[in-house]
């Protein structure tokens, strides 16, 4: 915790998120069209998702299944009976003139993810995609606008949190947990750039410590967690400045431009739509049977929060490491396979998997690289047994990532096996003899001067020696 200035503490932000998740079902929410992944425009359509006269929606059972899984993952109360509503408004991306969504009887309520309460979870359909040609890039003032209906009707789950977040960083962190959780469940690609995960944030400020809520504004369509954090910070700053200047926050919807860092108003409260919600008469209620609930429960994998908790409890991993292994479940899977191979201490293996491995493979899945979990475990064990130095092991890992193979074979082939103690003692002896200056300084209390001697040893052993052990031997020898 950093210490903040008193005046900067005077206001606290109150943040809630509204999240839209495109489900990875085989077909669309209310028709049999396959979902679209960048196909030619208007090739994933049918009379139903184009809103032809006389067509009717039929709810996708797989989408209901996924939504139930999500509701369970968030420990929600699942409604014994929930219904769809029509949300009415005119727009060219909305073929029926209404969106089928859920309103006052959502699929699930009152859940929790981490320390954030989930207000509700509901099912709805996505709109089509509009492309505007012309200077403005928006529909008004566009030369022509064309519609691609491929996306129209894609199943969406909307997740609304309670306003439990107190900082932009916390909001982004929650977003990452949510993304990791949904990804782990396999119900969505949760790709923010491609729009399969979309975030809107509601934010208000209030005097720190007070319970009342201020007037909130809504930030629309943040397409990365970084922008979410920046956009929220900008909006909080704007609200604080406004309030400090004696002004009042107006309820409005804002767009954050990550390029300019600016906020522009999309619409104010007065312009808010009257959506004339009413129960969708073409659909029957969703009344999950015991079998449906059981199937959803059985389909839930261990979720990141629980996995992180298990890593901390059972393997005594530090919190950050445990979280990283859970949020990036492919690293977690790799890690678990590695420790199952039996070699290496769990904490050390976790360290290598969360530090050395990502440093080499970036965001890729380690399963797609050459290194086998068991090979990494063996390498870590060799480091622990001091058969190879840490720096040499890093070199070995480079090879393993690129070409695969057995760490011992790589060590032998490259002559990286650690210098034996007898040989090392002689080298240390020589280094002390030729660095008498440094020895005197260390003896005089300048501890860092030991670096010169260690450096000499490392040069001599070409990195095969373990730096820590070399230090220890030097100290022993010169009696400091």
């Amino acid at each position, binding site marked *: 915790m950093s210490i903040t200035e008193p005046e900067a503490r005077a206001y606290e932000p109150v943040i809630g998120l509204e999240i839209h998740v495109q489900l990875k079902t085989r077909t669309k929410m209310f028709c049999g069209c396959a979902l679209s992944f960048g196909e030619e425009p208007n090739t994933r359509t049918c009379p139903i998702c184009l809103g032809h006269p*006389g067509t009717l929606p039929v709810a996708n059972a797989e989408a209901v299944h996924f939504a139930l899984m999500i509701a369970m993952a968030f420990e929600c109360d699942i409604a014994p009976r929930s219904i769809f509503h029509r949300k009415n408004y*005119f727009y060219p991306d909305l073929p029926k003139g209404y969106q089928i969504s859920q309103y006052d009887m959502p699929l699930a309520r009152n859940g929790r993810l981490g320390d954030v309460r989930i207000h509700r979870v509901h099912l709805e359909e996505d709109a089509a995609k509009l492309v505007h040609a012309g200077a403005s890039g928006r529909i*008004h003032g566009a030369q022509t606008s064309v519609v691609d209906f491929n996306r129209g009707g894609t199943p969406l789950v909307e997740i609304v949190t309670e306003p439990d977040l107190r900082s932009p960083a916390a909001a982004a962190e929650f977003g990452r947990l949510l993304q990791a959780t949904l990804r782990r469940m396999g119900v969505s690609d949760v790709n923010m750039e491609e729009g399969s995960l979309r975030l809107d944030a509601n934010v208000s400020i209030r005097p720190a410590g007070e319970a009342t809520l201020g007037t909130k504004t809504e930030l629309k369509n943040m397409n990365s967690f970084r922008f979410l954090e920046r956009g929220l910070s900008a909006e909080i700053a704007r609200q604080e400045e406004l309030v400090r200047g004696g002004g009042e926050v107006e309820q409005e919807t804002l767009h954050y431009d990550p390029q300019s860092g600016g906020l522009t108003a999309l619409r104010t409260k007065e312009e808010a739509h009257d959506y*004339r919600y009413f129960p969708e008469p073409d*659909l029957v209620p969703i009344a999950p049977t015991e079998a449906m609930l059981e199937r959803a429960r059985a389909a839930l994998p261990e979720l990141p929060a629980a996995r992180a908790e298990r890593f901390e409890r059972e393997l005594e991993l530090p919190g950050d490491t445990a979280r990283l292994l859970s949020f990036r479940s492919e690293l977690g899977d790799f890690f678990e396979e590695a420790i199952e191979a039996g070699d290496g201490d769990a904490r050390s293996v976790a360290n290598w998997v969360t530090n050395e491995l990502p440093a080499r493979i970036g965001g890729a899945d380690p399963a797609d690289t050459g290194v086998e979990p068991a090979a990494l475990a063996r390498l870590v064990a060799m480091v622990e047994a001091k058969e190879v130095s840490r720096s040499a092991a890093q070199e070995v890992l480079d090879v393993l990532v690129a070409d695969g193979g057995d760490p011992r074979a790589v060590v032998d082939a490259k002559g990286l096996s650690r210098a034996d103690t007898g040989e090392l003692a002689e080298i240390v002896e020589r280094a002390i003899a030729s660095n008498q200056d440094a020895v005197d300084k260390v003896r005089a209390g300048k501890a860092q001067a030991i670096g010169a001697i260690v450096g000499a040893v490392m040069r001599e052993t070409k990195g095969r020696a373990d730096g820590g052990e070399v230090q220890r031997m030097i100290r022993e020898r010169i009696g400091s």
Partner: protein
Amino acid sequence: MTDLLSLNAAAQAGLMRNGELSPREAFDFWRARAEEDELGAYLWVAEAAPEDVGDLPPVAVKDLFCVEGVPSTAGSRILEGYRPPYTATSVRNLQSAGAAVLGKTNQDEFAMGSSNENSGYGPVQNPWDRSRVPGGSSGGSAAAVAAGAAPWAIGTDTGGSIRQPAALCGIVGLKPTYGAVSRYGMIAFASSLDQCGPLTRDVTDAALLFRHLVGRDRCDSTSVEYPEPVRLPSAERLDGLSFGVWGLEEEGLDRAVADVIRGTLGTIEELGGAVEEIELPSARQGIAAYYVIAPAEASANLARYDGVRYGPRSGDGDLDAMYEQTRHDGFGDEVKRRIMIGTYALSSGYYEAYYGTAQKVRTRIAEDFRAAFKAVDFVVTPTSPTVAFELGERTADPLAMYLSDYFTVPMSLAGIAAVSIPAGLCDGLPVGLQIAGPAFSESRVLDAAHALEKAIGFEGVPRA
């Protein structure tokens, strides 16, 4: 060839199955009859029999049923030129049973009306008196069957749109239980009320056509598996059956119509049935509730006609201007009126008072019927408060027009089965009797109707 005009559809089907009547010849006969129609009953007539013409007589189809490649406009200019890329389930079911599509019949625009005068393509004349309306909204289907321009037809009933025109044209019209027939491919008016059903010369034909219409459809979540096989009616007596009469004292009911109905009640008793008066306390609020619920649903159902994807488009430049001009040009006055009523009823701040209250009334009406069917087997009422009225007589008075559905709307709101059969004539114009039964009681309702039909011995439109 046999005089097909003298036969009901079931008899023609019998001849075809026995090989005594060629389906193609029958189709051509009816095609010629449809072509010769001068009442305005058809908006489109098939050019030729399909390759695989089956052994049921061809069927006239209300325009709002989507038929692949065939103009399907729901009687509206906003769908002028629209040819659907698919066929309605109900029509497909008839096609696979052997009944080819004979033509598309005229109707009130989007099924909104009780006189067929709201069609975007002109009115339909009543074959009994060409200065009078055929009723609506399935006016074209009713007139075609009554005039012998179709062996049988299908229509849709939302608040009386099958039963009322059937009554005014002197034929049989069945509004099935909600969910019995798939709505997929039926251009929607009010989704929670719309039901497809037969308009036929007699009760047997109604049962035969209905038998081929029912069934759960994967494409319509509100459709259900019909709980029993649909029986063809055979009853000639009504012994042991009780009939609860409602509405004969209602204010708007024409006295002469009431007298014809009273005569029919006598016939019921002669056939061994018991007649008693019953009360449906909430049914009087039916029209008020209906004219909130139906327009509310319609206001959303008709939002898709926006000029973006199909149908004519008017206006240029601005998107909102395009929407406004397209809908201004495409919709008729009654449709616009109902969109406005429905939009208002659903608006924030009014929803509970209008839509919420209307739904409560609807629930109460359904309870009224449940209570009634504990006491009696059937509820009988006049189908329409009056006989066919003059063309133009009620066009300036929407409320008077809305009251045409007074006796039919309660059954629609309750979602139950109801049939209208000709009960007799009044000043040379047909009067319809409505017989309603509980949900999925069509076989029983039609059986009772059959016994009455035989006893009444109603004869169709006098032919020159």
